[in-house]
């Protein structure tokens, strides 16, 4: 039996990622990249909508995708902290996309063949999109990691900055058909291979910082502002 929290976690990872990527539209290093990041954001948003809709149905309290996206506070978001980290540099966007899609791809692949029919259908679609995301992040990591001294240094700094949050990808099996911890082996092999080819160093393990999730608070304040100011507003 799949729990609400399990589905929320998958959906919130995708939703928060979509919101972060959306902020890069028209801010990428080249026009094609603006289009690419917007497309990836759209894929993540699409998956988030399906997952939150399903979570709302499992919960059975009458909350739809909009209620779950716009009317929950930061304490109720189940996403891992990796996805909410700020992206002050394009290197962080790419590093985060690599770390996330190297998780999402095997996760969706496993879910597509697992027992929950609804998750299996959603994952069956999302995995094809994740494969594109991983490919895209890999190409940029190679290009920047194995690029100039400046790009190499910034790519390495981006992975170093995000590394304390990678454990969160595999934490907390809230009760679903695939335990995230079991995906760690596949994830490690993908990430280590790409970083190695990009002449980057895999950072040493670091404990996740504790404390207030101020980045998530700020992200949600922006994302939910319109809905909170005009409840129920429609196009």
């Amino acid at each position, binding site marked *: 039996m799949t729990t609400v929290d399990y589905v929320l976690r998958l959906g919130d990872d995708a939703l928060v990622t979509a919101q972060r990527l959306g902020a890069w539209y028209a801010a990428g290093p080249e026009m*094609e*990249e603006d*289009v*690419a990041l*917007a*497309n*990836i954001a*759209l*894929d*993540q*948003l*699409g*998956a988030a*909508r*399906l997952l939150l809709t399903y979570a709302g149905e499992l919960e059975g309290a009458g909350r739809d995708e909009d209620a779950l996206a716009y009317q929950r506070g930061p304490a109720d978001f189940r996403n891992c902290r990796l996805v909410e980290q700020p992206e002050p540099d394009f290197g962080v966007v790419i590093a985060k996309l690599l770390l996330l899609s190297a998780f999402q791809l095997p996760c969706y692949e496993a879910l597509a063949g697992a027992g929950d*029919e609804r998750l*299996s*259908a*959603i994952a*069956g*679609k*999302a995995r*094809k*999109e994740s494969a*594109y995301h991983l*490919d*895209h992040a890999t190409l940029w990591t190679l290009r920047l990691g194995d690029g100039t001294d400046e790009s190499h240094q910034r790519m390495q700094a981006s992975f170093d900055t995000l590394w304390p949050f990678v454990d969160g990808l595999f934490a907390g099996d809230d009760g679903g058909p695939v335990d995230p911890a079991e995906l760690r082996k596949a994830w490690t092999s993908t990430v280590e291979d790409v970083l190695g080819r990009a002449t980057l160093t895999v950072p040493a393990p670091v404990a996740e910082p504790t404390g207030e999730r101020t980045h998530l608070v700020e992200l949600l304040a922006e994302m939910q502002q319109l809905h909170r100011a005009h409840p129920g507003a429609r196009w």
Partner: protein
Amino acid sequence: MTAAREAVAGVVDPELRVVTIDELGILRAVDTDDRGHVTVTITPTYTGCPAMDVIRADIGAALRAAGHADHEVRTVFAPAWSTDWISPGGREKLAAAGVAPPGPTRPVALSLAVRCTNCGSPDTEQLSRFGSTACKALWRCRACGEPFDAMKAY
């Protein structure tokens, strides 16, 4: 009263306006029960495809125009849509409109060239794996210089 299937099959894709939803493989089924209630089953191309709401509305309008006021549109996700479902006729229309049709998603023994939609040359290069909509990538012809969209094999 036009047959429901015929009415729905003629709905064009709002982002690829040269092909119908039937030719794209988005339309799964049109069922009419004994009381004349029509159930249309569709499947999205990409999970976040923003055209789905327009497609649902266009199906409703086409059915009403054909005299089928009593209808519903269902969305299913499994089995997942693939570009392999685009009909041969749909592929021809895409190419004629400047969108290179997708290759097969199954493994092939060699990589297939994407032909320029302007001059037909196979000497083309991919500029970006992402394009103007979720289902397309951006290409350029080395022979004639024309940039064009190509539908991703998916």
